[in-house]
């Protein structure tokens, strides 16, 4: 496993500096005991509530077990996995999820960075602005989903009403293939642009002033300064934000459940939503477990590759 990218950009080294050796042998022993006593409860909880269930799911993924039908779990070994990987239904959901993840994360990165950049160039009212921009991120996905469903209603929704007063026709936001996926992307972007903005803002304000001052003495153009000073310094932090958002977006369920329930047809069904259907409509627990394990694998592998790429970027 590669090490996680250190997010603590300031005070480098401090976190990992080994403690100066404690004077006595007995002291070190109590230290170790203390460390174990402090860490063990948290790790035990994680083992019981996160690791154990995952391993259980791993075991079930090789069986045809069903939570409602009961009966013994028969081993089908990789039967579930091959069925999932070869299923056209799954491929369709994977494509939908991919479009959604790329669209939503791309859009919110662009928007979030733009807003952060604009805010960072203001001298007054920044605190208020930042706080206001953060509101969508604090809301429950249930509230966000419900309320956007209301606003996007084709008949009496406020969005179409405003389009109408601009002389544009009604748009079926949630019931056409293309627009439904677009709506999902827009709503997710609305909720999570603040997240990218916040991180980008942190990066932008951490850029040391003297770099700019040096650049302005050189009469460098603003674009040049942005490209050579701002962006390279903000980029790594922004890439981390993108990673977090991509992981979140990949597992999106609640917004789909409330906004479109996968419709029209199955055109906005994400992988998570499909897992839900497999798990709870037919109670095909074995298949759903394998499906879930595959999703976790995809996240872990892609995260590792991405982090490795990030580390390389840092070294260059």
């Amino acid at each position, binding site marked *: 496993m590669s090490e996680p990218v250190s997010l603590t950009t300031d005070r480098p080294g401090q976190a990992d500096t080994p403690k100066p050796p404690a004077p006595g042998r007995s002291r070190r022993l109590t230290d170790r005991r203390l460390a174990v006593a402090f860490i063990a409860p948290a790790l035990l909880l994680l*083992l019981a509530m996160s690791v154990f269930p995952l391993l259980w799911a791993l075991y079930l993924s090789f069986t*045809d077990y069903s939570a409602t039908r009961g*009966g013994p779990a028969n081993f089908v070994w990789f039967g579930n996995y091959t069925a999932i990987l070869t299923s056209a239904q*799954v491929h369709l959901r994977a494509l939908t999820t991919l479009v959604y993840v790329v669209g939503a994360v791309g859009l919110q990165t662009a928007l979030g960075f733009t807003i952060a950049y604009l805010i960072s160039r203001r001298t007054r009212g920044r605190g208020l602005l930042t706080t206001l921009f953060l509101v969508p991120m604090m809301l429950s996905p249930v509230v966000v989903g419900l309320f956007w469903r209301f606003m996007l209603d084709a008949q009496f929704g406020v969005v179409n009403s405003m389009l109408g007063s601009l002389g544009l026709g009604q748009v079926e936001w949630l019931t056409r293939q293309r627009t439904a996926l677009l709506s999902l992307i827009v709503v997710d972007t609305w909720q999570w642009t603040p997240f990218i903005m916040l991180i980008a803002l942190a990066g932008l304000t951490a850029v040391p002033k003297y770099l700019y001052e040096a650049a302005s003495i050189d009469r460098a153009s603003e674009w040049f300064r942005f490209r050579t000073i701002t962006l390279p310094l903000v980029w790594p932090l922004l890439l981390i934000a993108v990673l977090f958002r991509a992981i979140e977006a990949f597992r999106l369920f609640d917004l789909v459940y409330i906004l479109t329930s996968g419709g029209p047809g199955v055109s906005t069904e994400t992988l998570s939503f499909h897992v839900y259907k497999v798990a709870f409509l*037919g109670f095909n627990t074995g298949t759903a477990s394998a499906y879930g394990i595959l999703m976790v694998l995809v996240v872990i592998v892609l995260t590792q590759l991405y982090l490795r790429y990030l580390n390389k970027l840092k070294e260059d």
Partner: protein
Amino acid sequence: MRHSQRIGRLSAALLLVATTVAACGGSQDDDAKASAPKAPAAIPELTKDPLTLSFIWFEWPPAQALEAFANEEYKKERPNVTVKVNTVPNANWHDAMFTQFAARKTDFDVAILDSQHIGEAVTNGNILDLTDFVKNNIDVDAYDPYLLAAYGQFPQAETGQRDENASLYGLPLLGDTWTMIYRKDLIGDKPPQTWDEMISAAEKCQADNPGVSGLAFHQANGSDAAAVTYNTVNGVYGGNLWDAKNRKIEGVLNDAAGQEAMDVLVTKMKPLTAKGSGNWFIDEVNAAVAQGKACIAFNWIAASGGLLDPKQSTLGKTREQILGKLGFATLPKQKTDLVPLGGMGMHVSAYASSANQAEALSFMKWFEQADVQKKWAAAGGVPSRKDALASPEFLNAGPFNKVYADSVPRMRDMWNVPEYARLVDIENTNVNAALNGAKSPKDALNDIAKDQQAVLDSSNRKGGGGL
């Protein structure tokens, strides 16, 4: 990499534990496998201690009506009992009940199952077999036999005949079917008699009244919304959902009659609906009617009560004014006169305590008496006893109750099989796709038939079930 080795060892150890636990669980399940446990033929002695009898239903007015009615009336009989009707969101109804069944522990004593859920619950042994209890305690002749079959019998005869030898697993709670809701002030007092007439009346009304759409019906891809809509049109145009005896859907559902029904739905009916109505279900259709935005609408009778509430309507300031504009009629006929069967029965959870199971049986016996059924009708319920259906208490309680009484002999249900939840999801998503232009009507119907057939045939597949 030392770390991953350790994780590996740890995983192996935990996997062992998981396997052991699951194996133990497995053997437990084996014991419980012998399908549905039997309820006693006579009601056991009831407790005198305070007891709460819990139901589970979804969130809608009849749920509140049932709780109020039971606490008012059943309390007179059993003062120590309080009735509680737990409700969940409609979209989560099936999942909420069956996850609890899967847990082999329910926080409800009486499950109010959709009629098509019975198969799944019986096969998994989740609800009590009431056959003996019914024989000794319920006057079965008082019922319309099909309703008794629909809300309790399994295997269910799709033809609408009650099979005297089949087992009963539930008793009727609330009958339901679709009613046609039409604007008397826009299309006239006399409701259209045939499906064709209905479509042309809607067409004319929509053309004459800008801003009002011709039709409003269920199109959503959640619950059973779009599926019931297609099934209704399919029935009216002489189609069949399946060949129950041979478990054949492919070639039956998508035969010529089925194709015609899909064409009528998508090419004739859909263009008459409001733009963006492709995700409408019960509440959106009601809202469209109440806002005066639909000439003709179809909705479940049990969900139509709110239409007469002046507070939610723009059609009038009093109930009478609203009734001057809204008419309720049985569905038009075409090649057949079939209407969809809705409604739900009461079923006793196999995992409730014996005291609560006994109380549940006592409640059901009480509930199915003639005078109680009439009172339930007056309180807003829809009874299943013939005498209650014909009683003035029922017929005068709402303008749509006559519609229900007239519809009873015309009802047809869906497939009542353990695979119901998946069959209905396939149909919902495909009909919804066809209605919203994501699939051609022909492709949608063929996909439904193919996928549903695969679900019925998939019982001996090696892995990947449920995809």
